[in-house]
């Protein structure tokens, strides 16, 4: 018993202070919110687009844009760019309420979250999610799971992943939605009582990500269900997911 108590003292208090205190430091090499510098970008150059594995980059009227919903955040584009016209900042705030807000251009401003529709105020006190992995590779799942550990402890915000869709206020979907999971995903959605939200975690769930256009998948849940929140990344950092969840419950702006 003494050892148990001693261990408890040694292991210390591990829960992060965020959002009341500072966010935990992100690794120096972390690749977060992309930034495009139009002034440095040669409009005729396509080097970044050529190396992008998922065609997340495109040019509209000669101006570069990046679709975070497809991006794997692999950083090949920044390595290929001769002019440093493109960079991944260490800003973890990627979540947004509309698909088009995931597209980064040279004119993109600071991310501002405004919900698509008015959400019930009681979600702000208690928001329960049923997580459905629809062909997710277990990385997004793992980083959802980690939010329930003592380090992040989302329970303190009234956030919880629950076992039954009947007990939940919405779905957090990961994975590109395989044909083999389509029916189970839709059935689970049906089982959630109204009002219900759908959150997409990871590029796969948003667009198919690295599995985009595989005939075995549905390019994410976008075309199958109404979506309330997009959290891009491959996988998104737990802090990025937390940022999205705290926005849904209006804990942060």
């Amino acid at each position, binding site marked *: 018993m003494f*050892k*148990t108590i001693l*261990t*408890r003292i*040694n*292991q210390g208090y*591990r829960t992060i202070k965020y959002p009341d205190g500072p966010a935990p430091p992100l*690794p*120096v*090499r*972390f*690749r977060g919110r992309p930034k495009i510098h139009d002034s440095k970008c040669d409009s005729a150059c396509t080097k970044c687009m050529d*190396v*992008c*594995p998922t065609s997340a980059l495109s040019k509209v009227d000669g101006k570069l844009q990046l679709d975070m919903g497809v991006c*794997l*955040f*692999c*950083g090949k584009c920044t390595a290929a760019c001769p002019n440093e016209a493109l960079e991944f900042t260490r800003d973890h705030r990627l979540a947004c309420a509309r698909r088009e807000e995931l597209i980064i251009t040279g004119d993109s401003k600071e991310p501002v979250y405004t919900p698509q529709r008015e959400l019930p105020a009681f979600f702000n006190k208690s928001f329960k999610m049923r*997580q*459905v*992995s*629809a*062909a*997710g*590779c*277990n*990385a997004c*799942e*793992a*980083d959802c*799971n*980690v939010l*329930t*550990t*003592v*380090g992040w402890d989302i329970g303190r915000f009234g956030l919880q*992943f629950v076992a*039954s*869709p009947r007990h939940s206020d919405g779905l957090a979907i990961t*994975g590109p939605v*395989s*044909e*083999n*999971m389509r*029916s*189970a995903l839709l059935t*689970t959605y049906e089982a959630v009582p109204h009002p219900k939200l759908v959150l997409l975690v990871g590029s796969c769930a948003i667009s198919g*990500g*690295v*599995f985009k256009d*595989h*005939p*075995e*998948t*549905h390019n994410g849940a976008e075309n199958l269900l109404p979506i309330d929140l997009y959290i891009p990344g*491959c*996988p998104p*950092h*737990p802090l990025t997911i937390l940022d999205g969840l705290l926005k849904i419950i209006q804990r942060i702006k």
Partner: protein
Amino acid sequence: MTVETYKTLDLKNAGTANLGDVTQMSLEDFRQCIISRVKAGMRLSNMFAAKKADTFILYAVLADDNESVLSVLSCESGKSYDSMTNDCPQAHMFEREIYEQMGIMPEGHPWLKPVRFLNDNSTENKNKAKTKRPEIGRTDYFEVTGEEVHEVAVGPVHAGVIEPGHFRFQCHGERVFTLEISLGYQHRGIEKAVLAGPHKRTIHHMEALSGDTTIGHTTAYCQNIEKLSNCTPPAKALAIRNIMLELERMANHIGDLGALGADVGYLPTSSYCGAIRGDMLNITAMVCGNRFGRGIVVPGGVAWDIDEKLAQEMVERVQTTGDYAKEAIDMLWETPSVMARFQGVGALSLQTCRDIGLVGPAARACGLHIDTRQDHNFGYPYATPEAAYETHTGDVYARAYVRWLEIAESLKFVKRQLQTLPNTPIYLEPGPIMANKIAVSLTEGWRGEVCHTAITDKDGNFSSYKIVDPSFHNWFGLALALREQEISDFPLCNKSFNLSYCGFDL
């Protein structure tokens, strides 16, 4: 017939040869060679079929762990052949898989069921008659009838944040007669997408094959590409890969040991390990910016360097994290109520382990001395702690304890590697991929042996790329471990294996 009768193409790990040099046998010799060699202690690491005009070629890779040799053999096959599962149970899933993918019938297979229910939304598949289209999860299951006998069906959507799969128990009260595991929900068509490659996306497909085994799978893949393009990555690149592989192993083992604590209601270890696992993942992120090691392993070496300062910082972090882990996990072994739940539950015998071809910690927990890092290593000596084999009870306790011993060994290994990093570049650009070759590569992922086999066509593109995740071998072990156990022991047994759904479903 003795083993020596057959001549096969013998490769070392991460070896390559001309496709024409692969031993072509008659179908009967192919069968007998596999059956007799597996009986003699070799393992069936990979078996698959490739289409050739109107017929098929069957390929097999047999691993000889004592001699560090991978034997490759092949034969021509028509639409059917005599199943070898009855004589060599290790082949059971491979034969089912080949039947599902290619339609080659293993005559006499005892339980020929779908492996992944290959489904897609292509028009070709949608136009098929409904009866010809597999419906996920619908197949024959074991049935037990009688009074007080009941069936429990779980999944695909489970009660936690976890991947989908379907489990079916035949029970008498709390007692489980059989468990059957039916997967395929995660099928994303990766092997098909890789064909005619490597493409721009191929390395990313490997990273997402099983998200928690990113380093294991990307390393196996890159070893193949490097051999096929005659590229030897610099020593430092290999050292960094090994460091990342062990960090991945420790993070997963620590997380699972914590979860095992939670499954028996022992919350201190589970709470601490949740945070400590994150600390390990964060060390991986120090190197490549991603907690799961995305982007670090690339054909030709690694994409991110570890300089002296970072190495020093990592050593300190690994040391601290290791100390926390040791303290948190040691509590398990010292708590009688935990040990009472771990010991004797979900036991597999050494014989069963050999028969079905278990790999990784699950096999070592049964007392089988296999570890790719030791048996088929490729430059960096790694010694499995001898103690890992002393706990050969094959139960939840053994699987847990072996993992703890591995964490301790990996800790030492990583620290040593970080302190003795070679002073070389980290990348050497691979040349073009050679035509008409076969390459076989193994790594020891945290769940066990990862095997990738590549075959290139006349233009140097993949005509076959066969991936075997350790889960492919081990899921059946979980099913057998549940027999005659209580159904309430399922979460505990499941977590002690913690197998990959997407690694299996591909």
